[in-house]
């Protein structure tokens, strides 16, 4: 295990140091005092463990493929955006657009997530232990979004095939979001997910929300829905 500090260093230098340590063969790196710098660990494409001992800024773990990134603090906007694979864990809260457009892997937020978490996800799993802000899951294409707490306004709006689960309240669903009945397989998947990621919050029952598929194709009979969605 290697250790490094961000003190007095710009993002570019920090990321270069991470890459240098990885090239030297260190599989686990502890990064001290990230001080909410933006763009940390962007584009790391090899299996490794990166532990940030503090909060990080925008796009931490953006476009990664493979690493396990752990943030012992909170994260700014666009956490792990466009990630291909790997795991990003935030012990605190996450800013807007957490896990935006991820294509695989998992993003685990133990605190709350702000607006538009899991926006346009194309695969993978997003797990939020707390609550999430408005428009989470917007235009979700594939993958799974799990919110153990309450979902904000316009949840799961205009989705394709993303499947959402909410443990708390989901009073304000977005356009074309419909409530479905969780299957036995869903229940098993969720309880295993909780255990695997050490979620402490106890959820009695998850609601399942999927796309009603009314916005998948233009249809004049659905004018009312389209007038909001177009």
């Amino acid at each position, binding site marked *: 295990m290697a250790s490094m500090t961000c003190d007095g260093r710009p993002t570019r230098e920090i990321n270069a140091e991470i890459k240098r340590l990885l090239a030297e063969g260190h599989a686990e790196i502890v990064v001290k005092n990230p001080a909410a710098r933006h763009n940390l660990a962007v584009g790391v494409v090899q299996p490794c463990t990166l532990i940030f001992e503090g909060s990080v800024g925008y*796009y931490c773990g953006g476009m990664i493929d493979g690493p396990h990134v752990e943030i012992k603090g909170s994260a700014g906007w666009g956490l792990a955006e466009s990630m291909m694979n790997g795991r990003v864990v935030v012990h605190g809260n996450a800013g807007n657009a957490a896990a935006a457009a991820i294509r695989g892997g998992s993003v685990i937020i133990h605190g709350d997530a702000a607006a538009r978490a899991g926006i*346009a996800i194309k695969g993978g799993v997003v797990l939020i232990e707390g609550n999430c802000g408005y428009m989470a899951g917007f235009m979700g294409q594939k993958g799974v979004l799990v919110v153990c707490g309450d979902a904000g306004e316009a949840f799961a709006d205009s989705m*394709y095939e993303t499947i959402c689960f909410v443990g708390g309240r989901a009073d304000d669903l977005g356009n074309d979001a419909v409530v479905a009945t969780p299957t036995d397989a869903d229940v098993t998947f969720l309880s295993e997910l909780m255990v695997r990621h050490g979620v402490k919050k106890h959820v009695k029952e998850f609601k399942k929300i999927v796309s009603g598929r009314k916005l998948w194709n233009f249809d004049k009979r659905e004018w009312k829905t389209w007038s909001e969605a177009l």
Partner: protein
Amino acid sequence: MSDNARVLKTSGTFTPEVIEDIQAKADLGRYRIRGFGALRERRWPTFDDLTFLPCTLTRIPLEGYREKCSTKTVLGAGCAKPIELDIPIMITGMSWGALSFNAKTALAKGAAKVGSSNTTGDGGMLQAERDHSKMLIYEVLPSRYGINIHHLRQADGIELTIGQGAKPGTGGLLLGSKVSPTIAGQRDLPAGVDQRSPARHPDFLGPDDMIIKIEELREATDHKVPIFVKMGATRVFDDVKLAAKAGADVIVVDGMEGGTGASPEILQEHTGIPTLAAVCEARAALEDVGLYGKIQLIIAGGIRNGVDAAKAMALGADAIYIGTAALMALNCNKPVFVEDYKALGTEPYHCHHCHTGRCPVGITTQDPELMKRLPIDEAAERVANLLKAMTLEIQILARSCGKSDVHDLEPEDLRAFSLEASMICGIPLVGTRHVFGGGPGWKKEETH
């Protein structure tokens, strides 16, 4: 005139086109969507409102055969790996999805043959296009379809797309007939959906966030390749400065004449400003912040030939993107397979039916049978020829104006035919010595 002859009166307001439009919407129950770009009569000033003033006695022209006129074009000159092109005409981003595999591959091959570049599009990278291109620009769009760090890293430049000239402020569209299982797989979508892309990026909103986004793209590509920012032409003077402030190496401005695979018709016709005005505002913006010549400017939108390109370059563009013209080199609107144009309710030279996925010449389709009508190698040859011809057109104009580098063309080489063009470009009206209005530098006039 016989007694029976009648004079047909046509409403100037409710023209046959307007009546047809109303009735089509009465049937559809939504706005109309189509491909191609603006179709209505161009009442605004265009590059046709300008003429070149070649050398006579005040200046000395260059000889075509002997005297060199460089066309080498460098974008992102300050980057570790700038984009070096042999010619200033590049192939713009058109998605694999809007375009067929054959069309994408032919464009890549054609551009590579003449030392130019091509750009991915709203659907991610097609491996064949990377394999065949010399220089590939990778677009990062709001939809993030097919976004892939490994593809990003293979690119010679990254284009962060904020919008397009045909439909600024809105997202992409790909109607279900084109969302084939292959395209759906590439975009992580269910096959056959009428796909709408978001208008905004999922993870940033304004220009201040974009500064961080651009830094992210640099981190992802080890600070090597140029970062472009592409926008539809609206408030160009301000938008260009914001993109410059955000750290773009290259700024792409796409005028309202710009093409599209499918968009709401009203946006194509009634939003944005013309390419001629866009290039003038863009140049003025860069001059205003002292970055003209440091940040490169690419202009797109309705560029038809080397003349339009040369005029845009004289007004301030470093390079030109072509889309529709390149599709025409692939045979768009050519009078072949006429029956298939008719089946779409149109005819060669009038087709704008890219949105249907039934392109008679195999360009904007995902139908394997139609695609066969576009043999890649022959099509690539035609693309290369068009790029060569356009470059020669620019060179002959540049030489006649006494320039040994096409990038030396300047506003002084132009005169305006119309008052409006004079005002927009800040170029004297023919027959006068007067510049009517500001043109490039209008902001300076305003503040002095």
